[in-house]
């Protein structure tokens, strides 16, 4: 039988070891990605890689390694989804936090979370079976697998993120703000627009950033409905191939350790850095707000 | 006359990081008496009693020097056992902090963490502790109810019962009545006078009338230094120090 001091020490040691081990695993993941991906740049210059418009690694003789069209594909799709999700998300958040009654809210919030629970592959399926035929018909296109269709579906995916974070931000505003504004004779909408919205703005930006992070990283939906053509897109009716889809399509066909393989890891690294930065900014904003609004 | 002193602070200093909170405190606490620590907010009263059961150890940047002698041993000495110390020196906090368990389990908590298994003994001790804390008659029909259902005053008496269940030698109280109404406060004060027959009590209070009503000794702290320490009636009727007099007269604080 140990005395309690030894026992405590052992338990503390157990948690520290597991904790530190897990942290090392997580660090290891990104060290591994980094080492594999960064190797690309010993053979492809960063300028060719980031600014080259042609991605054609399999071309006989003279392969090209430019990911600009892939980046633009990602950005177009992310932008399109936010154009749809920001107004809808904010309206939803304002409705939930300021207008809906308690009962309605209790019912709607789980429903919004349910949307977040739908696997992306299922939404992709809806995109293929329903939305892309619809879009091709409405706009008279030969097929509906393009940036627009994927933007709409990804927009639906990021909607719950934007709604629930913005709603949290609005609800956490002190009631004094509301009372002070109403007591001056403002209507409820004036109160929302002139008092709550400015106070919540940074938090709402954070919510949008988080949504952006999700949109950039979405793979299945774009793989299924974005069309995946390699050419540089010129409009939302063109098929696009975002970075995530490109990795998913090509990774199983490349030779392990080849330059192509490494270049796909480099794209993975780009994705990682982009999402990490976006999430980081959003996290900092939310932390700062939490400190500011702790009464 | 060594045995007549329960706890002795010897030149105790205390720092949070680089900020010094206590300066060379020398203080003797007498057994089976109530000693009140009074002084304006931020003068180091709470810090001082938290040194006694080493609660300050939980703060990583805290640093202490000097000695605190309890039962002839330095509680910060090399061989000191914090767990044993905290069993002997109970504490009641500023805000009642019952655990989210039943009333019974709250009082039995200290016994269970000492691995007491015998259900009958636990029952007995829970009952006697609740009786000592003047709470038994109010809760005896609902020992399995959540402790959060009790009023603030009842919750605080439950916390006292919880501390008593460990059969401590000393009880530290950190402004135990500051969140209670006058009636609940009066009940606690009656209770403390009863408990002092068996235990030594150190109480931090910002309420001078309370210190006057219940304590045997009073200690006036200002900016981390002891300004005056004497028998309560003496201090309140005839303070030696001008600073103490100003404080008692309500000049500041």
């Amino acid at each position, binding site marked *: 039988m140990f005395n309690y001091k030894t026992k405590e020490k052992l338990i503390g040691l157990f948690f520290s070891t597991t904790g530190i081990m897990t942290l090392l695993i997580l660090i290891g993941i990104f060290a591994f990605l980094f080492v594999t991906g960064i190797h690309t740049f010993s053979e492809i210059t960063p300028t060719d890689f980031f600014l080259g418009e042609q991605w054609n690694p399999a071309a006989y003789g003279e392969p090209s390694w430019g990911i600009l069209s892939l980046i633009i594909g990602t950005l177009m799709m992310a932008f399109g989804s936010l154009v749809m999700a920001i107004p809808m998300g904010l309206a939803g958040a304002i409705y939930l936090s300021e207008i809906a009654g308690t009962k309605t809210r209790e019912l709607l919030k789980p429903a919004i979370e349910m949307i977040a629970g739908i696997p992306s592959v299922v939404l*992709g*399926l809806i995109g293929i079976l329903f939305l892309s035929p619809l879009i091709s018909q409405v706009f008279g296109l030969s097929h509906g697998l393009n940036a627009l269709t994927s933007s709409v579906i990804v927009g639906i995916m990021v909607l719950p993120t934007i709604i629930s974070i913005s709603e949290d931000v609005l609800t956490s505003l002190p009631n004094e703000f509301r009372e002070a504004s109403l007591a001056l004779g403002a209507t409820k909408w004036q109160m929302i627009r002139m008092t709550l919205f400015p106070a919540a703005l940074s938090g709402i930006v954070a919510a949008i950033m988080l949504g952006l992070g999700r949109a950039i990283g979405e793979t299945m939906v774009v793989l*299924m409905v974005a069309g995946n053509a390699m050419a540089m897109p010129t409009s939302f009716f063109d098929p696009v191939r975002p970075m995530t889809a490109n990795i998913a399509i090509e990774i199983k066909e490349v030779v392990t350790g080849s330059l192509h393989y490494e270049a796909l890891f480099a794209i993975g690294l780009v994705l990682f850095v982009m999402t990490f930065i976006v999430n980081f900014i959003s996290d900092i904003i939310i932390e700062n707000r939490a400190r500011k609004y702790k009464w | 006359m060594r045995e007549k002193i329960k706890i002795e602070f010897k030149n105790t200093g205390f720092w949070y990081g680089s900020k010094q909170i206590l300066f060379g405190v020398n203080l003797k606490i007498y057994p089976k008496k109530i000693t009140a620590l009074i002084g304006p907010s931020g003068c180091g009263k709470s810090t001082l009693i938290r040194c006694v059961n080493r609660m300050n150890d939980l703060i990583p940047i805290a640093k202490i020097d000097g000695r605190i002698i309890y039962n002839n041993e330095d509680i910060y000495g090399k061989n000191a056992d914090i767990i044993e110390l905290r069993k002997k020196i109970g504490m009641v906090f500023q805000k009642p902090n019952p655990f989210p368990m039943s009333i019974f389990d709250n009082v039995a908590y200290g016994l269970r963490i000492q691995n007491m298994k015998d259900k009958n003994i636990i029952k007995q001790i829970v009952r006697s502790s609740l009786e000592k804390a003047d709470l038994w008659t109010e809760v005896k029909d609902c020992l399995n109810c959540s402790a959060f259902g009790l009023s603030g005053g009842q919750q605080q008496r439950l916390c006292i019962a919880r501390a008593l269940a460990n059969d401590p030698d000393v009880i530290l109280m950190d402004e135990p009545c500051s969140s209670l109404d006058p009636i609940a406060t009066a009940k606690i004060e009656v209770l403390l006078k009863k408990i002092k027959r068996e235990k030594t009590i150190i109480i931090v209070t910002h309420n001078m009338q309370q210190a006057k009503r219940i304590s045997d000794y009073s200690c006036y702290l200002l900016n981390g230094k002891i300004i005056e320490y004497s028998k309560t009636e003496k201090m309140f009727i005839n303070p030696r120090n001008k600073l103490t007099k100003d404080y008692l007269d309500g000049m500041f604080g």
Partner: protein
Amino acid sequence: MVSEHSKQKIYFVFFQSTMILSVAILLFVLIFIFYGGAGVVNLNFLVNMWSHREITQGGIFPAIFGTFLLAVGVSVVSIPLGICTAIYLNEYAKENLLTRTIKLAIRNLAGVPSIVYGIFGLAFFALFLKLGGSLIAASLTLGCMTLPWIITASEESLKAVPNSFREGSYALGATKWQTIKTNVLPHSFSGIMTGAILGLSRAMGETAPIIMVGATFFIAHLPSSPFDKFMAMPYHLYILATQHSSPYAREYALGTALVLVALIFMLNLGVFALRYNLRKKKAW
């Protein structure tokens, strides 16, 4: 000149209709899947082996089973590690800049795209550790992906336990572990479980990473060891939707989606129930 009141009315009606639209999208997705897929979902569909030649002859049992095994694998990898790490970070690690940075980094890892974990799994577990495309490689990959989610959720529930419970316990002479065991974990348990179940339900719907580490559209037998390839519902419906030539593929894809969504929603409902219970019980 429009009065403030009519303006307010117009805006509020707009907000309300947006909300109705969001819920309508959810309902539409559910009804679409149900309408298109319910026709093929019957007992045979749920319990039969997949028939490769004539898809109407078989069922998706191996895919359901594969997803189930994957869920078990992911739980084994990430739940204990995640909870222990959260306990370490919140209860044992010194509260300093390093710890705060680590917590921040972990929260951000939770937002890293699943495909990034996928290529890592392929390169590290499948190729470097030579596990190949297998159940264990997929479990480890998805396990790594869910770890940050579970750590973050658990850490948040541990942080929500008021410090006064810890202090009260220490003051009664409890040791650190006694305090954690009797006065911290019990009060954060529901929250930790909620996070774990949500993480798991998300992992079950993930498709991109498992494409790379062992999910396959068809194998004739159920996986018999962790080193076997496996079928999984999300991957199954992806192939049916995009690469299958059978005229019934659409219906079967929707049927598979229906089963998958039903499963995930059941887990989600469990979470809502747990959370509701927690909120009712929570008195501090």
